[in-house]
């Protein structure tokens, strides 16, 4: 419930659109019911008038029927426009809101959610929140409004009929779908899980096709896939059965309500209601069930949406890993790096990721860092870039303590080339301008030349404006690495951090990248993380990290 209210709060910027959409939807529902009911009343009255049993002024009702038809048609058009407008407004707000809350958390807190699925989870969750207005809010709110109005209207003729209709609407709109939802949850979740396994099985079989062939395990694998498919279809069948029972039950409830209302109303004819009223009530009850027909889908979506909202709030509610100083001291003017007795861990119960580390890099020199996976290299970077806070010791740049500086100031002093460099899915130019938005064409070209990739970029179809495919698919690993270095040249920061800059490159590319690094480190205070001996040649001293502890080895 709290999640739901908080979700509604996100609509605060566009509540006028939200209300207008709900109101119009209810209006269309009511116009539809009114059209049928009035038609029933009209022809019954006309029949009685034709028999001379009733005097009728037929102009008004006939015009009203046409009027309701137009309201229903035009209202439906407006309703669709307005609800979509509201949806898109919400979508824009939601994304900005999410981004602005996520930004202070990156990357430290987000690492908890790693394992590849953070992004796909966020993607699916945001997508399902996109639809919360159209799929959940509008059908629910408009159903509540129109049901109340319809029941009040019926109560004016007969409270008993109104009560019977209300009970039917409650059963068909709330009770039965909720039961169906509960019953369907098991097979639904099972179907999702099974299709996940099936997908993974297929992916395995395709990725490992050669191995299956060589190890002669293809036939059993195909038989296993057949079984997975059959199991998936079986759960889909189960879910479809429940769905079928539910829709049959809803149909039956609507008709039974009509039946009960007719039985209640017949004795009332002549005592409070007349013949045309009776005809009207019958059609009214029958049509009233349209108002709740969209509810089951809304409940279904609500479950997904709330789960998605909970996960999104969970990410958002995380506290940033580093608190910024309230006032900032003057940025350093010298750029030697000193780390004294640094201790850092990710949680109070966890082991020290960095345990009493001390080292110093004089301005303009290069310290190589080696160590196995998990030795603390990434933790050291997290501390230096102010992505994570540390518990003990001190880190100083040019004598200024890291904690007295804003994270942005610290990162402004550092240029980073990482093993996993993210190139954005736009032009090479845009990717470079990230480092210095006001850079001129000449400066861009100079940076590319420094990174030894100018000729290759110019040979590409659109030169600087070539669009980098997603995750840098257009470029080879070595090229992407050198574009990232061009970015570092362009940023021209006094501190340089290189994280496994040559990993995964072949000999020729590695050589080219190392040459570039040689130029890049000149005059900059550099921390070079690598386990390639070839790269360590560039270091003036080497720090060996082992399980969070360090020893310095001079060359």
């Amino acid at each position, binding site marked *: 419930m709290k999640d739901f209210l908080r979700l509604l709060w996100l609509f605060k910027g566009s509540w006028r659109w939200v209300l207008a959409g709900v109101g119009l939807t209810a209006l269309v529902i009511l116009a539809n019911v009114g059209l049928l009911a009035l038609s029933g009343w009209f022809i019954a009255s006309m029949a009685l008038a034709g028999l001379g049993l009733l005097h009728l002024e037929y102009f008004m009702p006939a015009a009203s029927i046409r009027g309701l038809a137009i309201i229903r048609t035009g209202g439906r058009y407006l309703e669709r*426009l307005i609800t*979509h407008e509201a949806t898109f407004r919400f979508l824009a707000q939601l994304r900005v809101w999410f981004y602005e809350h996520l930004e202070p958390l990156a990357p430290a807190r987000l690492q908890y959610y790693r394992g590849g699925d953070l992004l796909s989870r966020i993607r699916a969750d945001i997508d399902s929140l996109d639809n919360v207005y159209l799929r959940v809010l509008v059908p629910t709110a408009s159903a509540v409004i129109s049901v109340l109005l319809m029941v009040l209207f019926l109560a004016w003729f007969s409270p008993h009929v109104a009560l019977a209709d209300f009970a039917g609407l409650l059963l068909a709109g709330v009770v039965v779908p909720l039961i169906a939802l509960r019953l369907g949850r098991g097979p639904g979740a099972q179907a999702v899980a099974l299709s996940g396994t099936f997908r993974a099985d297929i992916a395995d079989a395709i*990725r490992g096709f050669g191995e299956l062939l060589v190890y002669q395990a293809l036939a059993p694998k195909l038989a296993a896939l057949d079984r997975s498919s059959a199991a998936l279809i079986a759960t889909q069948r189960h879910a479809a059965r429940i769905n079928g029972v539910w829709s*049959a*039950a809803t149909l039956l409830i609507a*008709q039974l309500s009509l039946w009960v209302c007719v039985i209640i109303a017949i004795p009332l004819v002549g005592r409070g209601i007349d013949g045309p009223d009776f005809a009207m009530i019958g059609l009214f009850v029958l049509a009233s069930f349209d108002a709740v027909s969209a509810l089951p889908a809304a409940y279904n979506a609500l479950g997904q949406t709330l789960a998605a909202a909970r996960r999104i709030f969970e990410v958002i509610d995380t506290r940033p890993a580093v608190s910024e100083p309230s006032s900032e001291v003057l940025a350093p003017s010298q750029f030697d790096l000193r780390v004294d007795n640094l201790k850092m861990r990710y949680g109070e119960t966890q082991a020290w990721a960095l345990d009493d580390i001390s080292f110093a890099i004089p301005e303009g020199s290069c310290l190589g860092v080696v160590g196995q996976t998990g030795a603390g290299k990434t933790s050291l970077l997290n501390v230096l870039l102010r992505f994570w806070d540390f518990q003990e010791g001190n880190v100083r740049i040019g004598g200024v303590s890291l904690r007295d500086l804003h994270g942005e100031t610290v990162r402004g002093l*550092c240029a980073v080339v990482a093993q996993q460099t993210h190139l954005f899915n736009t032009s090479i130019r845009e990717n470079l301008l990230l480092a210095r938005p006001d850079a001129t064409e000449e400066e861009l070209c100079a940076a590319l030349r420094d990174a030894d990739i100018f000729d290759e970029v110019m040979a590409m179809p659109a030169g600087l404006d070539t669009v980098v495919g997603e995750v840098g698919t257009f470029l080879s690993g070595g090229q992407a690495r050198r574009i990232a270095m061009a970015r570092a040249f362009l940023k021209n920061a006094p501190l340089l951090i290189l994280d496994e800059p040559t990993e995964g490159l072949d000999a020729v590319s590695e050589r080219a990248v190392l040459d570039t690094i040689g130029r890049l480190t000149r005059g900059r205070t550099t921390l070079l993380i690598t386990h390639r001996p070839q790269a360590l*040649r560039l270091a003036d001293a080497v720090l060996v990290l082992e399980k969070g502890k360090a020893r310095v080895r001079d060359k």
Partner: protein
Amino acid sequence: MALHSAPIPRATAKALDTWLRSRAKAVRLPLTAAIGIGACGGLLLIVQAWLLAHVVDSVVIDHLGLSSAWPFLWGMLAVFVARAVVSLFADAVAFEAAAGVKQTLRGELTRKISALGPGFVAGQRTGDLTNLLLESVDELGKYYAEYLPQMPLAAFIPAAILVFVFPTDWVSGIIMLISAPLIPFFMILIGKGTERLNQRQWRKLAWMSAHFFDVIEGLTTLKLFNASRAEGEIIGRISDDYRRSTMDVLRVAFLSSLVLEFFATVSIAMVAVYIGFRLYYGDMHFLPGFMVLLLAPEFFKPLRAMGTQYHARMEAIGASERIVALLETKLPERPAGQNELSSSARLDIRFQDVGFAYRADELVLRGIDFGLARGERVALVGPSGSGKSTIARLLLGFDVPDEGAITVDGTDLRDIGPENWVARIAWMPQAPTLFHGSIGDNIRLGQPGADEQAVRRAASAANAAAFIERLPQGYDTIVGDRGQGLSGGEIRRVALARAFLKNADLVILDEPTASLDPETAALIADAVERLARDRAMLIIAHRLESITEVDRILVLNEGRIVESGSHAALLAQNGLYAETSALYHEMLS
């Protein structure tokens, strides 16, 4: 959301529709049953309208009480129950039609993919094939569960209603008859234009989402350049632009539904008003008039649902395009060889002037000439893209030389039965696959019957036993999806254990130590050393340090062997190898 389908040309769509229909033959029984049951439902609807009209007529016109209405009311109750049962059965039967098609089709597709072989699979994206087998096939389901049974009903139910309406009131019948075809007509007319606009908007939405997630993925990078905060505004601006342009499109697109609503609603209103006046002038009785009014909305309901069915059909056609393409892909023309290698064979492998092209006229390998025999180790080195992995694929029989031949003990590899050949090989690709299941079963991949002891022996030979036994579940640890939970070095050691257990004559290893830290690389190198004993081994490397011990090194460049010999001999040659090696040593010193 019709994201995937660039509009399919009419003729193609028609051909695909024919194909979809042809698949329905296998499920004719449930399909016919679904249509029959649905038709019964339609008739029950008419009976229900008649019964209700009767009740209302007796109360309103004849002023009769509840007692005389009871027979009709009981009749209504029976019809209600019957309709509920019909709806239940119609859904269930239609599901079976779809299920039958889906299951057979998946079986056919997986068999086709395996018949097409590794050469085909290598050229496909994993995600594409999984989507094809899972989602595309599921999307076809709607064609059999919804479109095929509902389309005849969309014609039958309105027709049945007209049969009742015409004799009672022909003018109402005419109103319905005229407006009925206008609905699908306008639906198609307006739908065609807006479909394209719609697709453009969806593509835009997809692009916008891609941008959003690209930014989130690169958040760390943005932060490093202090550019992350400005991005929030950009996201807002892009989303707002999208809203504006989409609403421009939707204003027009929703007109189509306006027209549809208009015809259905206004027809009902016209029928009501017209019947009212006929009753007023005493031209007709109340009962048939009221019944026509009850049936009028039911007349338009299936017609309005046609939009959904049409969409289901278009989706199925879109999904079937790639399914049909895959099923119609020609199998490689080469007839599989039949010869058997004797198990005591010497295993003398010779590449004789071998050339290979993935695409016609673009040779990636040419003039490859070398030999490999039991007890020998040959390494392939060279820059990426020089053709090392292609040589391994040719030796595995995954691809066939376009020039020259590979012979084994004098027999052309093409003439040897593929099953017979791969039975002799153990192979570890660059990124070995662990299949969903236990580590033990993964090691047992090639020998499903191997006992626990054999598995342990293989694991310890591969230097994997220690880490496996440290896992809480040991050999029963379930690994999934890309060997989740295991590191790259551990996955490779499990794959090596697989190779040890198979005890093959020929071992092919693709970059066994790439991207590993020195300690893990040493563990693997040690296991590889053991694996090589008494076998023929082909090993691919792009780092030179790891392969100085082998018998022969082939240096590849741009698809040719440019140098070959032992480490020492190659150094003496002063060629590419010596140069690259010197480069390393210079860097190392």
